[in-house]
């Protein structure tokens, strides 16, 4: 099973949202990291054929997805960033509707829905109207509908937005548990969500691909790009303006800043251990 993107480009007027993107996805979890406007949602919408591309191709097992049409959509599960429901429907009836749209076998619908509602802790409120749900509960309903039909390609745009830490961990673990024989794309700002479960992380900046690698490799690449400095309170604002600051803390009553970047002052102390994906994010993606 392989999903390939070749020279994919999408423009909105003068703004290039995706610029000649080429990627290959095989079964596993891919985290897509990027700032607002990096092109994450555009990529998601192109993969789900919700918007038209300007150029390039998207191939599933060598076949263009636009030619596959319904057969491709059979494989898809999509959770968009914007919450979209019929709010006057109950969670149960909404999921039944989506299941029918996805062509899920009638015999399996109830079983799948019950299982998903149980995993997402919505079993007790399944017959309540969605409009009475909190933001986090609505997010979980969205996730359930994406998972209906056991899709082979799961595209999740900000899946854990609005969830508390316990719920986020549960969802993360669940995604991890179902990732075998699936291609899962996870777009998010929350670095910790993808750090532990992603096989590969895709870094996008202003529509361009910066890097694709495992989190371990990415962190290893910036080993010599992180230094710590002792500064005064008066110096701090200047430093924050000039460099990318990943952490500020106090040790033995001294103010320590951790900076990330290429042209850092030489007198700092190099940090090579306990680096995080946030520092990778800062290094590659922050302005």
């Amino acid at each position, binding site marked *: 099973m392989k999903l390939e993107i070749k020279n994919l480009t999408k423009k909105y007027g003068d703004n290039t949202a995706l610029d000649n993107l080429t990627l290959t996805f095989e079964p596993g979890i891919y985290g897509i990291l990027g700032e607002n406007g990096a092109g994450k949602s555009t990529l998601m919408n192109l993969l*789900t054929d*919700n918007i038209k591309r300007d150029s390039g191709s998207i191939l599933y097992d060598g076949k263009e997805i636009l030619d596959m049409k319904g057969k491709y959509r059979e494989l898809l599960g999509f959770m*968009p960033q914007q919450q979209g429901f019929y709010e006057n429907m109950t969670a*149960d*009836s909404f999921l*039944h509707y*989506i299941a*029918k749209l*996805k062509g899920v076998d009638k015999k399996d619908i109830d079983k799948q829905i019950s299982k998903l509602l149980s995993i997402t802790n919505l079993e007790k409120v399944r017959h309540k109207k969605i409009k009475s749900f909190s933001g986090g509960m609505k997010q979980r309903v969205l996730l359930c509908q994406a998972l209906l039909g056991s899709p082979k390609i799961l595209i999740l745009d900000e899946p854990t937005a609005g969830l508390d830490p316990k719920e986020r961990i549960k969802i993360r673990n669940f995604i991890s548990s179902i990732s075998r024989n699936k291609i899962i794309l996870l777009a998010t700002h929350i670095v910790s969500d993808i750090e532990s479960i992603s096989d590969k992380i895709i870094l996008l900046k202003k529509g361009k691909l910066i890097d694709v690698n495992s989190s371990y490799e990415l962190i290893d690449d910036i080993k010599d790009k992180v230094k710590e400095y002792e500064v005064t309170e008066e110096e701090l604002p200047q430093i924050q303006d000039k460099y990318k600051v990943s952490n500020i803390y106090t040790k033995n009553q001294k103010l320590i800043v951790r900076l990330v970047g290429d042209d850092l002052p030489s007198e700092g102390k190099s940090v090579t251990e306990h680096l995080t994906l946030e520092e990778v994010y800062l290094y590659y993606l922050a302005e």
Partner: protein
Amino acid sequence: MIEFKRILKTYSKTILLTILIVLNIFTFLYWENEQYDDRKTYSDIMISELSKMKDMDKDERVEYLENANKNEELTLSLISFIKSTENENGITFYEENVMKFYNEHPDIVEQIKNKTIKEETERIKQIVYNKLLEQAKNIAGYDEYLDSIETKKQELLTFSIFNKKGTFNYKNIFKTAEDYKALKDINLEMGNYTAIEEFANYKYINIFLILSILIIVFSFLEDKKQGLKEIINTTKNGRIKLTVGRIVTLFVFCIISVLALYGSVLGVSLLMNGGVADLENIIISVSMFSGTTLNITIWEYLGLFITTKILSIFIIGLFIWYFFSKIKTRNLGFLATIIIFAIEYLLYTQIDFNNYMSILKVINIFPLIFLNDSLKKYININLFGNPVNFLTMIYIFIGICFITLILLHIFKSYYDKRQTFSLIEKIINKLRTISDFIINRFSLLMYEIYKIFILQKGWIILLVFIYIMSNYRFLGYNGGFASLQEQVANYYTKEFQGEIDSDIYTQIDTLKEKFEKVTEDFKEQEEKYKNGEINYYQYYSHKVDNDQATIHLSGLELLENNLNKLEERSDKENVKLWLIDNNPYENAYGENAKGKQNIALIIIGFILCLLLANSFSFEYENNTRMILNTTRNKKKVLKSKVISAFFIATSIWLFVTILELRQFLGTIETFTLFAPIQSLEMFSSFPLKINIVTYLCFLYFGRLVLMLLITSVILFISSKSNKSISAYAVSLFAILTIMLLICWINI
């Protein structure tokens, strides 16, 4: 002030309120009685007659108006008579008093013949005289009426059930007599009270008034809906101060709404009908208010009415606001409000004033809604054995509600605990489980219909549509027959409807013989009367028979002419035509029906827009478009939307067709449907040789095609819109343009 500005700045609300004011005026103008179209003539005649009677006393006015009314009746009869003589085969059969009037007033006859006197004007005059006569009799008889109350008091006190001291009945008799005694020497005047009567009778304004207050009340509830309530509650001015501000805002909007809605209606009515000067007269001078004991001028009455109405609508607004803020969901709030209003209405209409439970008729929102009805009554309510005037009770009720509701709102703003009504919630949950069970078995097509009627609240539009069309008269009216001859000819046409054969002619000949014998017989009797052999009454009885026979003979003659024309056309067009009563067909499908059909078409187009314009834009607005687009059955969704829209359009077509046919088929003999279409005068040149029922099938099928075309246009517009409001606006504009074009072509 902040709340007031916030609401005004929400342009959609300001626009909605403006639309309500405009709609209110149009409804008032459309609702207004259709006895006459020419208001200017009506008010000119009214003013002229009033000035003629200015120096007359009460009894002289009554006499003058009675004579004028009688003369007017005769003039109208004379006009009909002269019209009938102008017909080729006119009949001169009218009552003797009309003939007498004809002979005595050659000047009027001349004016009718040269059209100086017009029928419509005379009809309006008669309406004016009737109205003024009613007024004059009320005023003339008012003193007597007051005396009769005193007399009645003495009579009632002779009965044991009324003369027990300390009882309600006893006190009521005395109170009533005292209250009316105070009106002994009031000065009642005749005047042009049309404007005030129309103003008092116009009840639909209450709907617009309540809608306008609902707009304001729901704007207060917006923070609950949008999740802002928690934020606002934690601010310094977010509780009691905000509530007080809102109460004041509601009161101000009540003043604005009442003044705008009632003021515009009164202004329009006074402009159309005149009578501003007469507003200085005592309100009891107006016939509909003759039972009240309010000794105030009409101006003062209007002031009292407006003030009371402002307070009434304010109370209703406070109540609805409190109610909705305590109930969790808006739908439940609506349901509960409807139930309460329904119970209140039942109590208001079903309980008699004499009943011991009559207090429930007063402690009720409907006397506040139908305020004019409340103000023009004189009734005393039994309040713990004491007679208290109905009006006084209403003001006490307003006062109590005012204080209670304001305190409740202030208390609620300080400590707001949302009611859970756990038992209701359990019931609702159970109902939802059942409804989910049903919904989950829907096909994709049924889901689309569910989205339109349930999720988009299309059921409300459907109910309104069913109500309007069920009460709609599809058939036109041919304005009656120009003459008795035509009337009689039509009678025999109905009798002999069907294929034209020798049988018809035989029957006509038999009837002609019968009636000719009567006329011949009359000639003999006339001779005998002239010779004194029979008296007048014997002669008169034969005369009546002769007159009848003459009409029937001329009717039969007309029928024979029609038959001959039909036979000529049959030969020319090589089609065996039938004799058919054309009127029902004209009224349903001819010129007479065009206006009705056009209005029905516009209503249907409007309803289709409201139901279907949001089909696609609904998915945009709910952000479900992306999810639907990524599913396997994406194309099925599109197909289902189209099929469901066509299904709804077809159902509407079927419903309207059944209603129309039901009305139409009740006016014809069904076998005539199988007549050749050319048998109908309006289709005499129809090129195809088909029968009427085949034509109707094509006609109705054509209408179905038109409906489906309209539906296609609406769906197309919806698919291009990503906002509901633009989908509705563009669809309505497009469809109404098409409808008006069709109507114009039709005309």
